[in-house]
């Protein structure tokens, strides 16, 4: 294979500019900076004004609609919200437990599956095919169906030792589905590592496994971190689906309260709690993605 040069060598940036710091800016540059400042100020003002107008219009449209008083009473009742909050928060702890346990299991299972799919040679064919079938299957089936099949199917077998707790079965179903997604993310990351890296590692006498562990995976992990974080954000809300198996989580707690009071505010409360949970991860995912892009760009430009 022809080994192409991947990028031009980056100049070493440490040498200071002769004669010390930057020369003072010219009239021209000062003018340009002032213009940019003015333009930035104007865009901020425009953005503020349009946001405000939009918010007012939306508020007026909703609150002046004929059904609003009833909607407000059934969905946005402060007293119902306060009353339901403790139970829902307790339920959310269950969701968080599924999230942590499930998230870790997904990482391990996804990585394992991806590694199996990269194996070469006829001896590994059965495992490789199994991993491929598993990924295709569980990426295709809706999570809710897997939840039903695992959550109700396994206990129905009546086998000794099969857990019946909706917490365990729900986590298992989520891990089954998400591991398939994450396996694909990892595989894409592994394949994104340039083959010349593998050649260099093998030429030093590293075995396939050592090459994977020390050279390929650490680099793959870096490229896929943004995608993994996005999947984590999705997982954060999907853990609410274990409620269909009867686990008393945030969603189920809200449902119970709704059943008792016929007021839907608890759903809104539960929804808001999930959003609060997701926002930090979403911001983190954005930040990591932006950093990865910057690194890539600076690498290709120089």
């Amino acid at each position, binding site marked *: 294979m022809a080994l192409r040069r991947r990028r031009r*060598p980056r100049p070493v940036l440490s040498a200071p500019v002769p004669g010390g710091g930057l020369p003072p800016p010219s009239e021209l540059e000062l003018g340009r900076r002032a213009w940019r400042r003015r333009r930035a100020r104007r865009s901020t003002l425009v953005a503020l004004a349009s946001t405000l107008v939009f918010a007012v219009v939306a508020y007026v449209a909703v609150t002046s609609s004929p059904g609003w008083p009833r909607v407000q009473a059934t969905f946005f009742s402060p007293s119902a919200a306060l009353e339901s909050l403790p139970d829902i928060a307790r339920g959310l702890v269950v969701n968080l437990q599924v999230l942590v346990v499930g998230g870790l299991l997904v990482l391990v299972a996804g990585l394992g599956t991806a590694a199996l799919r990269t194996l070469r040679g006829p001896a590994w064919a059965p495992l490789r095919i199994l991993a491929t079938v598993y990924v295709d299957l569980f990426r295709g089936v809706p999570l809710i169906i897997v939840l039903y099949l695992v959550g109700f199917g396994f206990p129905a077998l009546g086998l000794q030792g099969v857990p019946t707790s909706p917490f365990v079965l729900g986590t298992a179903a989520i891990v089954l589905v998400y591991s398939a997604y994450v396996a694909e993310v990892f595989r894409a990351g592994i394949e994104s590592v340039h083959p010349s890296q593998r*050649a260099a590692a093998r030429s030093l*006498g590293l075995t396939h496994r050592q090459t994977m562990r020390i050279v390929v995976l650490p*680099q793959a992990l870096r490229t896929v971190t943004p995608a993994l974080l996005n999947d984590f954000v999705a997982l954060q809300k999907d853990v609410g689906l274990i409620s269909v198996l009867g686990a008393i989580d945030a969603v189920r707690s809200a449902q119970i309260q709704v059943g008792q009071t016929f007021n839907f505010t608890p759903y809104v409360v539960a929804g808001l709690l999930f959003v609060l949970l997701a926002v930090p991860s979403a911001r983190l995912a954005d930040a990591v993605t932006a950093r990865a892009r910057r690194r890539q760009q600076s*690498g290709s430009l120089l």
Partner: protein
Amino acid sequence: MSVLELRGIVKAFGANVVLRGVDLAVDEHRVVALIGGSGSGKSTLLRCASLLETVDDGQVLLDGEDVTDPRADADRVRRRMGVVFQAYNLFPHLSVLDNVTLAPTVVHGRSRSEAAEEARALLDRIGLGDKAAEYPDRLSGGQQQRVAIVRALAVRPRVLLLDEVTSALDPELVGEVLALVREVAAQGMTIVMATHEMGFARQVADTVAFLDGGVLLESGPPAQVLGEPQHPRTRQFLRRVIDAGRL
């Protein structure tokens, strides 16, 4: 006995037959320069020799042992050779020092401290001791390639395979890399190098071998192959190189 001997190497990629039976013997402490046009199969030959490609026919003998025998443990064989690539291929997520100590520790089981000490000594010798903790992308191309050479030497290989190690470099960085290769050769390392640097080949190589159309058309002392080439294809190739200002 030759350190490295290639016998009748054949290699094809699909219908593209790149090597059609290449014979080459490299004796201990000798430097062989492999020349030939772009796409003539120099890299492929070196990759076959280092078992990074599986040959379609022929044998690679390392110290007389047939390492193309499927029963040979290819990982163990590769430990006895060093390869340096055109694009350096340093590991970007490891520091310069870790790049150099990786194989000695992981593959050869040397202790970290011993390997690090030896690596530092090597880096010091090439004037990059102060870069040991840096990551490769903070280094210039010439510095990266010199680290790559040190990385290959750190496993104390029987033979060093160099694949156009200066072709990806800016012209002003070529000299420092060639100087290192010259020094390594002077210390007695057995070397096979694919190169476009004819002047360097003339000075450093004991044998120059011209690869064309999948066979070694002509090989011998540099003065003969580069000075009085016998084969019209060799003359044609060298004329093109001279026209490009590389001789």
